[in-house]
């Protein structure tokens, strides 16, 4: 489904500072490839010279070769014409190649910079940002910048051509130049206005098309509901309304085209007519030759496309600057969570985890953790239990320093996590998220995500520990089966088991299982419970779970409520002593029929 807000983004007005930042970004990106700028402009210059000489030679050829009654001059001028044509042809190739190469290089560099930067930005940024928006930055915004960069060398060459043509005509006869060229600036203005007016209409049309396809998509993916409630007619009438809106927008766009395109075609024709009239009378009066008229006509025809392009470029520059300033916006966001100066690697230790008076809130929302104190001894396994929003997942996310805490300290083996190098910290702490994400690579590469060089034996033994080996063996290509968005569809439970294997292979000092078995079929969970016990042995482990059987695996159970620890003990102790504990567990009943 298309993200409509990205369309609206492009129409938002810009401040001066934003404009300047956008322009600077484009220029600095182009500046990195001065060589291609130089090649493009130089080739453009030679091309211009050759191109401008072609009509001039044609005119001379008519005057000296055709009008003149002797055959002797004709071959010479035809030869000149062909030579100029050859130079023009060669350099049009060089010029195009240089311009495209420059533009594509700028595009590729900018995208890489953007993506590398996004990789380093903190969880908090990604929580706020929508994937669709970021994709638009890397895709349509960069494409707009690319468009303008592409047109830059061409425009320089075109501008030179125009100046040269104006010079040649003015030198021959100033009034001829006026008649031939006076409508051409209007052509450029018309092209610019067309591009400028078309843009919002085009966006609105895209937006309506996206709305329409959203209805199609939901009607098909939700077909069971549509059929189950007989809602076909409702969806049909919604689609009718959108189809009508698309019709309106498309017609609006077509009417705009109908207004401008014939006008853009007419303007140069006026130059041709003016040349014929003025030039014709001058020839009769003996001041000009027929060749001059033909040459002037030729010049007009030659300038049509450069002027249309220039108009388009001028129409596109504000959009490209806007796009660049949006890209810049992302680039200048600093990662909140980064290595402090003097951050250390993690020393060897048992993996003791300690939360000291930790308070934390997501942004400006209420406190999720409120003075939490919790110590987990090295090698101990602890189950965190609590109702929704009790803060258990937050505990799991603060230990690897995905977020920065407001007050208190989080320590591993006595060292504040903020004093550790991020790489070292996150290698030492392994986490399995509840919503498992698998990459579109093979099962093997997914499991070996943390250690791509791990031998297949290590991958397999991690899979065995996570209870995944058995089902992987039944996949079409075993460990080489492609999974993820573009691969084989796995069940939620299977995905979770692969995610556990991924964490196990990384062999972290501290392992966090955040509701990591919630989608595993309870009858299967029984199978991996033994494996989990194995994984947890001798490793500091934090388990977040609802199912009593999983909770019972831990050495100790900690009950969280309102961002604090309210009770701790073994599963059985808490069952016996804590009313709240029994309440929280009570509703986790689920068994398959």
């Amino acid at each position: 489904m298309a993200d409509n807000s990205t369309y609206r983004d492009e129409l938002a007005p810009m401040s001066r500072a934003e404009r300047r930042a956008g322009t600077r970004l484009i220029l600095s990106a182009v500046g990195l490839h001065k060589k291609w700028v130089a090649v493009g402009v130089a080739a453009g210059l030679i091309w211009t010279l050759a191109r401008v000489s072609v009509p001039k030679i044609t005119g001379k050829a008519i005057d000296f070769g055709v009008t003149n009654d002797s055959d002797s001059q004709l071959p010479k001028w035809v030869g000149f014409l062909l030579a100029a044509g050859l130079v023009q042809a060669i350099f049009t190739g060089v010029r195009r190649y240089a311009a495209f190469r420059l533009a594509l290089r700028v595009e590729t560099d900018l995208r890489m910079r953007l993506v590398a930067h996004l990789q380093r930005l903190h969880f908090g940024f990604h929580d706020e940002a929508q994937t669709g928006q970021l994709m638009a930055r890397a895709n349509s915004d960069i494409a707009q910048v690319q468009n303008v960069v592409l047109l830059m060398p061409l425009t320089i060459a075109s501008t030179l051509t125009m100046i040269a043509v104006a010079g040649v005509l003015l030198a021959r006869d100033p009034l001829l130049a006026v008649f031939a060229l006076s409508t051409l600036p209007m052509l450029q203005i018309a092209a610019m206005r067309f591009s400028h007016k078309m843009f919002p209409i085009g966006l609105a049309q895209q937006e309506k098309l996206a709305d329409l396809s959203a209805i199609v998509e939901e009607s098909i993916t939700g077909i069971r509901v549509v059929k189950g409630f007989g809602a076909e007619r409702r969806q049909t009438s919604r689609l009718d309304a959108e189809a009508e809106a698309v019709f309106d927008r498309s017609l609006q766009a077509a009417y705009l085209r109908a207004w401008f395109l014939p006008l853009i075609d007419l303007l140069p024709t006026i130059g041709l007519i003016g040349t014929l009239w003025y030039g014709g009378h001058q020839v009769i009066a003996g001041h000009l030759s027929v060749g001059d008229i033909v040459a002037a006509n030729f010049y007009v025809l030659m300038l049509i496309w450069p002027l249309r392009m220039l108009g388009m470029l001028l129409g596109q520059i504000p959009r490209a600057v806007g796009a660049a300033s949006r890209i810049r916006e992302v680039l200048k966001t600093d990662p909140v969570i980064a290595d402090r100066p003097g951050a250390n690697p993690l020393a060897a230790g048992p993996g003791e985890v300690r939360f000291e008076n930790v308070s934390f809130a997501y942004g400006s929302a209420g406190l999720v953790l409120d003075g939490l104190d919790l110590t987990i001894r090295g090698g101990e396994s602890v189950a965190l239990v609590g109702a929704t929003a009790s803060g258990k997942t937050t505990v799991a996310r603060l230990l690897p320093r995905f977020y920065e805490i407001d007050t208190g300290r989080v320590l591993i083996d006595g060292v504040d996590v903020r004093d550790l190098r991020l790489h070292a910290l996150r290698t030492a702490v392994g986490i399995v998220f509840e919503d498992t994400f698998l990459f579109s690579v093979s099962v093997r590469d997914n499991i070996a995500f943390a250690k791509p060089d791990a031998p297949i034996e290590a991958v397999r033994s991690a899979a065995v520990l996570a209870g995944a080996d058995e089902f992987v063996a039944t996949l079409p290509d075993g460990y080489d089966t492609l999974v993820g968005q573009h691969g084989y569809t796995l069940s939620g439970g299977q995905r979770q088991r692969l995610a556990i294997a991924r964490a196990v292979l990384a062999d972290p000092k501290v392992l966090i299982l955040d509701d990591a078995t919630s989608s595993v079929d309870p009858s299967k969970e029984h199978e991996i419970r033994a494996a989990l016990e194995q994984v947890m042995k001798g490793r500091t482990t934090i388990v977040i779970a609802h199912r009593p059987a999983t909770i019972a695996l831990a050495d100790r159970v900690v009950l969280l409520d309102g961002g604090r620890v309210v009770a701790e003990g073994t599963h059985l102790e808490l069952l016996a002593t804590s009313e709240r504990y029994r309440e929280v567990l009570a509703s986790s009943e689920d068994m398959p029929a």
Partner: protein
Amino acid sequence: MRGQGAWNDLVPADDMSRGEAKRVIRRLWRMLGPWHRGIVYASAVVVVQVAALVAGPSLVRYGIDAGIQVDDKGALNLAVVMYIGVALLSLVLGRAVTRMVARLGESFLQWLRTHVFRHLMSLSMDFFEKEKTGRLVARMTSDIDALQELISQGLVLMVQNVLLFVGTAVVITVISPLLALVTLAIVPPVYFASRWFRRVSNVAYLEVRDRISTNMSTLQESLEGIRVVQAFAREKHASDRFSETNEAQFEANLSTVSISAKYFPAVEMSGVVGTAVIIGVGGWMVHAEAATIGTVAAFVLYLNNLFEPIQQLSQFYNTVQSGGAALNKLFGLLDTGPSVSERPGAFDIAPSAVDIVVNCVSFAYLDDVVLDNVSMTIHSGERVALVGPTGAGKSTLAKLLARFYDPSSGSVSIGGADLRAITLDSLRRRMCFVPQEGYLFAGTLRENVRIGRPEASDVEVEDAMRALGVLEHFAAFPGGLDTEVREGDSRLSAGERQLMSLARAALADPAILILDEATSNLDPGTEQSVEQALEALMHGRTVVVVAHRLSTAERADRVAVIDGGRLVEYGTHADLVGAGGRYASLFAAWVVHRP
């Protein structure tokens, strides 16, 4: 002159055979029936407009030969005035024709969109289960968009260009057959160069498209998986992986540039060669008094009219081809009929009819027998749970009851009337099929509840939600019941979606409910609300529930155990547990694990 071969090149040839293409065009023409008159008018205007364009250089010729060369100012002025007239005419006609064609094309597209969607919605469940969602969506989006592009961008220009080329060729042949012959000699090389360019750049662009989509999906994945990447400290690895696909996109783009860096010089060179040939041969003819200077000048200007169309048409080729392929696929969809449809003479179901009788029903799906001779009766007001292992056929049975499919043999009837004899509309008013994984449509919460009964008032929506005890919960959302939601909306938990689904059913208020119980796990908190809402919804209705939890079966009036497509046990919970059969052992196993 352009021969038959050139035209055949413009019709889709890669995806379709020539015969197929002809069929598609013929069928399209029939489909365009209501627009025929408009098409004829628009075509007439285009012909006049192109004639005006072609007249231009001839007027220049007249001005030079009859005016300038013989010092006749009157003839020169006449040529200029006529040229102005012709230019204005072509402006006016150009605007008119663009508007006419847009109106025709866009209204046809609007009709096509609604027509195809209506057809799609009339198709039966089995069709949607066989076809991939993405492909069906593509029929309505990218396929129709391909036609849209053809109509809005290409159609007028294409027709104009063909006419311009033909018109110019005819006019120059009339003016000077010999000079026309040498001028047209430049056409075949340009034509073949354009064809080469189109073919080679097509392949290159396909590659570019491929690499772009790979690059974008790598990016999307690295954004969606950013938490995993950071959790494992693999940022550099992810950047490297992106860098590879990013550079691959660059390389693919650059290879298209190399192609055009060969083609465009060749075309520019041909232009100059054309001019040189006209002047060389024309000059010689002028000296031999076989042509006038005006003719030579006109030919130089006409050369543009020959070049532009060839280049433009070769660019339209792709648009035309994908438009044709899109139409072919759309026709394929339109030719698929619904497998479940209303018989002629179908009648509305009697309002009192409730008893459901399944009589010797068998159902085969793609040669697999899913249900084998099942017979059962569900009485009015009764609550029946269908239980059995995955793939046993319980969901299929539920869908047969809702007439998502028709049985291969046997019959399902309500109140004595065979489902196949009843109108689908009246059936849906009596019976709703409620998949419990609540699917959210884009719109407000209120609109989502209203799916089953679009005409319901706000009060009715709220009453239905209140009856289930969920009104307060949803009214507490930031925007209340007017909160905008959409599928995949992370603000609604799985449990809340289920509640929405139940509220939908409550508003539709059918006498018979077919429920497909959710398999996913819920948060302990919402689980209770769902149970309560479900209980309230089932109250006073005839219910058939596909049960994934034995607690649901335990509360039902009767339990039907389906295994291997057969009904193996059917009775009350107590009876079946007492009988010690399949159900009893399932239940015993479950009780042990119960917390």
